[in-house]
């Protein structure tokens, strides 16, 4: 107890003496956390949106002719042999016509002069949820195109590909901003602690002569690093939360945000970001002490 109260008094004294530098470091840590968690939030939401869209993913195989019952079971066998699927649905020319007519609603009369068999028959394949990877979908669609009687396979390639590229780009940004967070935070905290050590060299020397233990001298610096990590990440995440709320309030109209249904980080993710930030800052402080403190 005496140890902690003495160390806290010492830390408080140090912080009072070096508060301008400490404040600047705190801002840098907060900004780094804000930048990283901003992109990470978008990324996690895009991943979630991707999963949701993946639920609706279907591949449509347009056929030359309507397959007979025997042919249908053969096609089902060949499809399921390649990859397990949720569901396979056969659509005849007539079914396709009826569906289009329903979709047209009041404008159904545009179909009046057309032959009800003008639409091709098709097979709708609903893949399993594990088939979310773009390369897997592509491979599956290429295989489906080789089935007997298949003319064309469609699954909204362009949209899926664009979405996939965007997610990949976000992944790179998250990795880069994560690296930036690690470098900036560790460097800034290490540098601040180094400045504090250099500025207090005379004091540390006297403390050493008076019989201060390593714990007495080092713990306040570690606490400073810990506080930088804790407060910096909390401020960064708070700023992000307010930004998130602001975006939610001001972009409530129809658009991508409505479609994606943005959510904030779960308490676990918040905990992990704060813990990572604390580890980085305390680590930066520790490495600086090892390099520059001669005790």
């Amino acid at each position, binding site marked *: 107890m005496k140890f902690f109260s*003495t160390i806290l*008094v010492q830390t408080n004294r140090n912080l009072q003496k070096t508060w301008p530098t400490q404040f600047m470091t705190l801002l840098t840590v907060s900004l780094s956390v804000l930048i990283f968690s901003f992109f990470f939030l978008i990324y996690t939401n895009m991943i979630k949106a991707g999963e949701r869209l993946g639920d609706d993913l279907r591949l449509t195989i347009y056929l030359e002719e309507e397959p007979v019952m025997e042919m249908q079971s053969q096609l089902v066998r060949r499809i399921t042999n390649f990859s397990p699927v949720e569901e396979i649905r056969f659509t005849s020319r007539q079914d396709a016509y009826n569906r289009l007519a329903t979709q047209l609603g009041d404008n159904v009369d545009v179909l009046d002069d057309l032959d009800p068999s003008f639409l091709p028959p098709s097979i709708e394949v609903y893949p399993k949820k594990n088939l979310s990877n773009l390369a897997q979908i592509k491979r599956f669609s290429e295989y489906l195109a080789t089935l007997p009687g298949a003319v064309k396979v469609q699954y909204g390639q362009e949209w899926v590909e664009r979405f996939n590229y965007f997610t990949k780009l976000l992944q790179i940004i998250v990795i880069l901003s994560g690296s930036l967070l690690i470098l900036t935070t560790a460097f800034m905290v290490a540098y601040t602690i180094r400045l504090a050590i250099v500025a207090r060299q005379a004091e540390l020397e006297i403390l050493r002569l008076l019989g201060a233990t390593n714990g007495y001298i080092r713990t306040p610096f570690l606490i400073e690093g810990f506080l930088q990590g804790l407060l910096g990440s909390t401020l960064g995440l708070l700023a992000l939360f307010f930004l998130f709320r602001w975006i939610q309030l001001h972009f409530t109209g129809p658009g991508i945000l409505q479609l994606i249904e943005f959510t904030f980080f779960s308490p676990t993710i918040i905990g992990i970001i704060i813990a990572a930030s604390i580890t980085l800052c305390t680590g930066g402080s520790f490495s600086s002490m090892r390099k520059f403190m001669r005790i």
Partner: protein
Amino acid sequence: MDTQPANKSIVEIVRATKIYPPDVVALEDISLSITYGEMVFLTGMSGAGKTTLLKLICGIEHPDKGMVEVTGKDLNRIKGAEIPRLRQQIGMAYQDFKLLPDRTVAQNIAMSMEVSYQNIRTIKKRVIELLQKLRLEHKHNAFAGNLSRGEQQRVTIARAVANSPTLILADEPTGNLDSKTTKLVMELFEQCNISGTTIIIATHDESIFRKSENRVLELHSGQMVQSTDRIILTPENMP
């Protein structure tokens, strides 16, 4: 404070030699034994090696030859957590004060007790007590950098004494003091000595040990030239 048998050595120096680069012999073949509870004066001219000897005793410097033992611990072999533990038992009043100018007098004195994780209330009480004894109570909140040299000297003495160490080393403790303040400082040392603390005072001020019955060690060019056991004047041995 540890209570130790009066005849047991707290400081044991055997044939210690200290040479500063390139070839300045600060101490040569010094042997010395100081028992628990003793008060010893170390005298000699400037450059005689008094400060170096104190530095060897508190472990700031190490001898190039010979051995220095303090509280039974060989300072050449002591390492790790033992070093701060030993230093907490030694209170040193430095000739160059070693105070932090941007800290108050009270904070400077408190440092020696804070490193031993003493209770804050105890620290405050002890600081006030020492400041009163050294007539510095009005300087409690003054910054050490704004004090006169004499005041700074008293603060460094108060810091050395504050943690109730087993051994006090004072390097020229009265160098910047007038006779009245010198008396105050010596009274403080005597009180500590009466309560069992061993005290080694390095000084060239003869007035502080002339009438003393304690041992006086004289250094000259790094060598021990005289070790005098003062005769205590009692009615029995008076001429």
